[in-house]
């Protein structure tokens, strides 16, 4: 999947790719100890790479959200259904619009379009449903995960996306060596990450965003390595590395 991180205070947008392996579960947001929210995403692979020179792509097949308050609830979103598991279980199909609201937790499906999960009024996630009518071999029905409102998440929030929610970054230019152009580096958490300018399409391709791209599975940009964010199961709520 492609990751995009917006730093509103720095007015910078950074992007990176983490391909991972089909079957991996990536921790996207981890704030279990404080707000009680954890978001994980499971990867699937396409049946064929898009071209001979490219590697196989992976996509999110399932996004799981665990919310601890007021009581522990498990939400599992796939391109076709949403399973809401708390004290009891509700299975909601994605082909019709459904809203389930229990005060502190609400799940709203807009038919075949997106699922909004709101926790406690100030945390919300939007999961886009990408469904292909006639998929090519390298395309799979998959999900896109967007953070709608992160005000309720703590400063200690972690995960591949969560760790950047309260961060400031800066951009610096490295002087050019002979015969080369000057290169850009991103200053984040006292680390310098070489980046290049790229453009990404988001929101199902309806919008473009210009971002600073960090190569090599976001090496140095994220704390640790991406493998540290691979969790053991879909509802794992262990703290970040």
């Amino acid at each position, binding site marked *: 999947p492609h990751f995009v991180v917006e730093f509103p205070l720095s007015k910078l947008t950074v992007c990176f790719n983490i391909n991972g392996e089909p079957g991996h579960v990536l921790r996207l947001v981890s704030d279990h100890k404080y707000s009680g929210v954890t978001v994980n995403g499971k990867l699937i692979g396409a049946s064929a790479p898009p071209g001979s020179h490219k590697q196989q792509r992976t996509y999110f097949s399932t996004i799981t959200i665990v919310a601890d308050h007021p009581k522990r609830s498990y939400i599992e979103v796939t391109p076709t259904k949403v399973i809401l598991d708390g004290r*009891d279980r509700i*299975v*909601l199909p994605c082909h019709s619009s459904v809203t389930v609201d229990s005060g502190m937790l609400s799940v709203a499906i807009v038919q075949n379009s997106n699922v909004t999960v709101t926790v406690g009024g100030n945390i919300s996630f939007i999961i886009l449903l990408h469904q292909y009518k006639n998929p090519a071999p390298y395309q799979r029905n998959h999900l896109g995960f967007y953070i709608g409102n992160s005000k309720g998440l703590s400063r200690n929030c972690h995960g591949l996306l969560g760790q950047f929610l309260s961060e400031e970054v800066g951009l610096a230019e490295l002087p050019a060596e002979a015969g080369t152009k000057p290169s850009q580096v991103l200053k984040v958490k006292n680390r310098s990450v070489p980046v290049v300018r790229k453009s990404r399409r988001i929101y199902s391709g309806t919008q473009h965003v210009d971002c600073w791209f960090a190569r090599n599975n976001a090496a140095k940009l994220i704390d640790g390595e991406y493998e540290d964010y691979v969790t053991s199961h879909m509802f794992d709520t262990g703290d970040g590395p």
Partner: protein
Amino acid sequence: RVPRQVKTILVKETKPHIEELSIRTTILSRYAFTAVYCAMLNRHSAAAEGLFQFQIPAGAYVSNFTMIIGGRVYQSEVRLKEKRVKQGNGKPKNKESSDTSPEPEGELFKMTANIPGRNRAFFLLMYEELLQRRLGRYEHVTSLRPTQLVSRLSLDVTIIDHSPVTDLEVLPLRNGKISGTGNSGARPNTPKTPGGRTKSEVPVTTVIKNEKTVWKITFSPNIVQQAKISTSGILGDFVIRYDVQRDMGIGDIQVLNGHFVHFFAPKDLPAVPKNVVFVIDSSASMLGTKMRQTKDALFTILKDLRPGDNFNFISFSNRIKVWQPNRLVPVTPLNIRDAKKFIFTLIPNGGTNIDGAIQSGSSLLREYLSGPDSSPNSVTLIIFLTDGRPTVGELQSTSILGNTRSAVQEKFCIFTIGMGNDVDYRLLERMALENCGMMRRISEEADASAMLKGFYDEIGTPLLSDIRVNYTEDSVDYVTQNLFTNYFNGSELVIAGKLTNRSAESLHVQVTASNNDRNIILETDVPLRRLQIETEKHVKAASAAMAVGAKALGSGVMQVLGNPLSSIAEDFVERVWGFLSVKEGLRSRLRSQTSKEREQHTQLATNLSLNYHFLTPLTNMVVEKPEVLLDGRMAPAPTIAPAADEAAPPLNELPGNTDKPQKLDGNMRRQSSSQSNKIGKVERKPAKKSFTISKTSADGD
């Protein structure tokens, strides 16, 4: 080879012989059309009286009856009940007093006609019913009781559904007494038919699956096979059960010719906890089997209560005994054990104080609901069982009903069960209808234990409460009931209506409901054109099946009548709407508090009954009978056609046989409009929302 015994039976038969009895049913999206064709031969030279009788399901309405005798066609007419006609009338026998009593479990349609010597008579009866989903199944019952051995007996049932049919079962013939037709709630403990073949003793049932959504079931025992089951021609009920695939979505909507029908039965929902008080008759008349079977059922029901439920028991005779005074208790092993002790010690004696019992039960629930322990979203109900009329305390039905309404205060629902023949079923039905419940009757001979448990199973698992179904404002009209207090697991909510704009692209449907502590909103845009095309496809399949059925039915009759089934199918969504509206009108009439209100509902239900040719408690079916001379010949008839023009219809009567939808009269329009105003209309179109969110994301291509 026909055995000698069977031949002897046939030879000894003095009444006209049924040469053929063919029953063809087409169930199109849960709406069942049945045509019964009977050919009767009078072998003797003298005229003889032929009796055609057929048991129709309790919830069905007869829509046509035609006789052909001596080459003449006698077609029925549906008229206002008040209008007395000297000629023969083919109303169901049990319906004679049905104007004031609730529907019995099954109704026997009876028609006698003189058949000239050495002549044949043909009878064609048609009825329609909307199958109700109970305990997760639709049940279709056909009574096979021709009362004599029949040379050619065949039953064909074709099921065509929008959604794939699942769990189709053909049960062994339900023999014995004429039993309930699906109202019982009891499910015989029969195995699923392996490979689609029944385990009945008669190896003649076949189930053929034609394609994904079309099933055909045939049953045609020859005369020898019939004799093996019963030499008296009482074969029993042929029962088919099935369900269709469904999910947690908005449900199944079908659109045809400006009408729609919406079937809503979501699954994968957790049960809502319930607060239930069982109010059980322990008067002297319950002594013996009734009390034993009631106790058996209550013991089983106790096991089925869920951990979140709260309950109590009240027994009533002259004395009213409350098991746990002033409270409801949670389901714990200790409470269950104590409750069993209470049930065990119930000893029938004394009279029947219905009013006192309901007051006690209501007061228990009111106090519980206003206390701190009650959950606002749980479902609260009384299950009331009696086998008799009120004999102690308040005896007047109207006072009991008034007292009940005041006691209930629309805070909970009352489900009533009557056992046996000495029950005021009208009182029980009104009590249930006025308090968002249902009524069931358990006949004197039935297995009360199984039926009581069956009824509890139907209402024991509430999944949603306060269900409201809305459609785009100004797009629909004359919508049938769209607010429901509860939705129980295994049941189905059905709503029908008219589309005001047939050419509209889509219809926005929204269902709001509560499930325990959650509010659920389901909404979708229904593509009307696509649905119309799909429904037409199914209608075509049904018409084809009906055409085959009609061909098999006696060509003489069909030459005369055309293929009435086929034309009915072409408007089946409208007929579902008509059917539901009549049922609703009759229910509202029973519930009405003032004579003016009652008159309005009567008028509405009557007009619709006449419009759709339904034989209901408000209408009569009138058919001219042939006159046969003493020498056995037919009397010359003044007219060949049925006597449709004998009398001008009354001013408030709608013309009967029209293909196009009738314009409704002013009363109905006003009423439906006010009903429509009451229901919330959807103005918001959710479509695909545009939302402002951060770019922070993890997404694919």
